[in-house]
């Protein structure tokens, strides 16, 4: 992956983006999942939904990316409905 599609700014060079890690299925304010939330992050072989930030425009968005082939499947803003 050398370019990433920002939902606001379009296709931009990967060096403009910051990786913010996988979208978590656990919550930090739930005592039953706090350990999982802090230490046991998502790490699939395959498609994964994750947070990214376009640094110059400070656009935080979601991307679905395949963690073996490094192909980005789709990107969208957290405010827009997930398609």
């Amino acid at each position, binding site marked *: 992956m050398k370019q990433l599609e920002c939902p606001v700014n379009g296709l931009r060079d990967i060096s403009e983006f910051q990786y913010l890690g996988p979208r978590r299925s656990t919550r930090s304010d739930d005592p039953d999942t706090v350990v999982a939330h802090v230490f046991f992050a998502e*790490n699939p072989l395959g498609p994964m939904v994750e947070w990214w930030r376009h640094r110059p425009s400070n656009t935080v968005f979601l991307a679905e990316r395949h*963690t073996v082939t*490094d192909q980005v499947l789709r990107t969208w803003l957290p405010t827009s409905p997930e398609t």
Partner: protein
Amino acid sequence: MPFALLRYGLSKGHRPFRDIPATPDLKRSYDVVIIGGGGHGLAAAWYLSNQHGIRSVAVLEKGYLAGGNTARNTTTIRSNYLTSESIRFYREAVSLYESMSEDLGFNVMFSQRGQLTLAHSDATMRSFHLRAEMGKLAGARIEVVDAQTVRELCPHLHMDEGGLHEVLGGLWHADGGTARHDAVAWGYARGAAAKGVEIHQRTTVTAIRSTGDRVTEIETNRGTIRAGQVIQATGGLNGQVAELAGIRLPIRCFPLQAMVTQPLKPFLDILLSSANLHTYLVQSSRGEIVIGGGSDPYQLASTRSSFDQKVHLAQGALHLFPFLHNVKLLRQWAGITDMTPDYSPIMGASPLSNYWLDAGWGTWGFKATPVAGKYMAECVATGKVPDIIAPFALTRFDRFALLNEMGATAASH
């Protein structure tokens, strides 16, 4: 040995000899099954067969022997860590390397040339004092040195006086060294095979079946086998293999990239690293400069290289040795590192009573090959986790008892 060599030299009809026997057919059952035929798994097999007399052992390797992270690491052996638990453990690793060639009867080309980590800021110097004192407490040879001593240890280094990355001093670790990674794996494999250990290459584990809290069967692409005890040591795929056994590990995969240059005359006789520049260099015995180690900035389970990381590593190397500017790169590669939250490994017991973990080795696994093998074998042979690896248990995350070694890694994360 010299007479045998002489006889061999004078004899006719030389036959090639294989150090490692060809893959046999799978039996239906083994006392111990080791998943992963890299350095760690083979070392465990060697200790089981040579020290504990357990010979019904099968090592299952998905690809070819030691072709994963054992082949892809940059062979740094050191014990200059931050916590007393880690220093004690890695110090034994270094001492096992010191006698490894003799113990195995196989030349692993261990070269204890010392490791120097550079400080380019006062803050780094202060953290080095902490690491030096922690190391001295544990009996390792670690000291903080000034810029003049750095110049003497590494005369060709660009000190960048007055520049952005001026070398203010360093952490000198006289016990640090390097060894040939393939030879380490082959030495253990040969020694284990000689005692009856079966090494199954191109054998992928596809399912792990358990009854109650015990693993009973392991399904592979070549048939299903029963196992008395299981050791998992599968490098970058530790998270996924553990999931086959129903165990969740706190691991995220990142590729770590490295590269080597064309061979040059010897000019760098120490291991050199710079945490600020996220670069470390060592000159191999062939003269190539091995340059490591940049991690990709996002999770990925692929061994592809990227141009960005090559540029980054080249910039670091050129900053330290500007005269390398015309040198050509011969090879580049990446390994999938299984990173844990606290940059320490996960060793010992798992939620299953006969399944033992040797995982989470991230970017720091090669140096621990002998010591991890030794204590993983002890786990299996005695059924108990030895005291020295108890702090690295998987349960430490539930107890929030982390062993934070993030500041002691040379690679960029």
